[in-house]
């Protein structure tokens, strides 16, 4: 391994230890937010319960199958909110105030530094909640997922996180031009919310958008299909290909945006 890799591994360790110190400042908040997380999770399940009180199957998805998608969505969301969003929110703030200058001056890759600056450990509650949903869903289905399918799902999880991260980087890059980006991050969150539903319930324009433009289908429906053992090889390849394409696009956009950056005061 080249020394560059080692250097970044050390840097990552330092960044993480600073981030966890910062995050543990408010210990009472930790518990409070954990409780709130469970409240939100229960709340977001209501539409699903209401729908399946009316029907046994919607667009070919039974209740436990739709629960797998929801559980997967919650899992992804906990990773997003815990590991990706806090850091990237800092960038947005940094662009507005000009504090980003200090990051850019450091002798390491700026995208790496901003992406590892913060995380929120209390999102572990959401993570546990999502696993509970998944376990419950498979108990309802009456069988556990096959080990091979779980392994494949882990690969897709990594791709999905990469996808989400890339889209976030695109959003952040946009904030170099549109400064009030707190709006953009809300837009991102609100769009991501649609991922709790299997893609098959959407028709026409929504389906197109959620498959190709904002690829929610690749992030939640296809991994859920993998767990259920229903995903074809072609779709899996599509997911991996889409993930890599978005990552490359995000890196390009970030480089372009940094080149455009002129700091807040100049």
């Amino acid at each position, binding site marked *: 391994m080249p020394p560059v890799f080692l250097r970044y591994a050390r840097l990552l360790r330092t960044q993480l230890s600073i981030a966890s110190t910062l995050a543990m400042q408010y210990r009472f908040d930790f518990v409070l937010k954990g409780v*709130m997380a469970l*409240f*939100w999770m229960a*709340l977001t399940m*209501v*539409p699903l319960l*209401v*729908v399946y009180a*009316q*029907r046994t199957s*919607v*667009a070919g998805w039974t209740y436990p199958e739709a629960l797998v998608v929801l559980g997967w969505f919650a899992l992804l969301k906990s990773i997003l909110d815990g590991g990706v969003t806090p850091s990237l929110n800092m960038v947005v703030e940094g662009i507005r105030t000009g504090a980003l200058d200090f990051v850019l001056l450091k002798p390491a890759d700026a995208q790496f530094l901003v992406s590892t600056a913060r995380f929120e450990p209390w999102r572990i509650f959401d993570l546990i909640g999502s696993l509970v949903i998944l376990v419950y869903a498979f108990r309802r289905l009456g069988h556990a997922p096959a080990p091979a399918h779980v392994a494949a799902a882990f690969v897709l999880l990594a791709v999905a996180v990469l996808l989400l991260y890339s889209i976030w980087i695109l959003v952040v890059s946009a904030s170099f031009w*549109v400064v*009030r980006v707190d*709006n*953009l991050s*809300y*837009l991102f969150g*609100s*769009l991501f*919310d*649609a991922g709790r*539903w299997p893609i*098959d*319930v*959407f*028709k026409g324009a*929504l389906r197109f958008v959620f498959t190709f433009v904002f690829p929610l289908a690749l992030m939640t429906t296809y991994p859920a299909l993998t767990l259920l053992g229903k995903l074809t090889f072609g779709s899996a390849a599509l997911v991996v290909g889409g993930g890599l394409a978005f990552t490359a696009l995000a890196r390009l956009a970030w480089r372009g945006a940094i080149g455009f950056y002129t700091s807040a005061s100049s």
Partner: protein
Amino acid sequence: MMRHLMRAYPTLLRIGFAEMVAYRAEFLIWVLTTNMPLVMMGLWTAVAADGPVGRFGQREFVAYYLAILVIRILTSSWMVWELTMDIRQGALAARLLRPLHPLIVYSAEHLAAVPMRMLVISPVAIVLFVVAGPQLAIGDPVRLAILLASCAGAWALLFFTQVLIGSLALFIDSALSVFDIWLGIHSLLSGYLVPLELLPPWVSAVAHRLPFHYCLGLPVEILIGLVDTPSALRGLGLQWLYVGGFFVASNLLWRAGMRRFVAFGA
């Protein structure tokens, strides 16, 4: 005082409108953030593909969620974010120095955004008219009057609720967390996610007594003709009772908070 106010208010509205135009990109992004009704519309039309759910067929679901979109864009408020930010950053001090009550200035800034919102939402309103033209409350003068009164009531109710919660920031740090909880309950009990009549009867009965429904669900149901005129009038009465209650409560809290407000940095 009153004459003074009558002279100042049109100017305030003009300033508010100019600000709105200045931040048009952010405004458009905010509008796009309200995409949940479209997602729910896609979901419910898929559910209703094999027969209506209660009173709702596919067409009714489309009309319902389009109406939710229209009313939501027209009446919603961002007062709580503005107020908490002004309190936290001390900008409220400058507002307090002006010879007008800050809440009056805030209200003008918010009302000035309404024409722009009408413009942006008009395509959705046209689609709604095509889908549900004859049912809409705009043909009949009495129903139209009730609709307009209920929209004004929803606007006022949202505004004063947010003043109330925003004023909490004068006392506690986590006013926005309180608002998050409010938002969660609101999304469920206002009819934003699911029409109230599709919820379990006891939930729906409770929801009809709480203020959330009167912020959004009531004008929507009046607009697309889901309620008859007598019950619409009853709802309107309760709505304005809530408006009065929240007006008094928010003013009391505001006044109590003003006594302890110390501008940061002062």
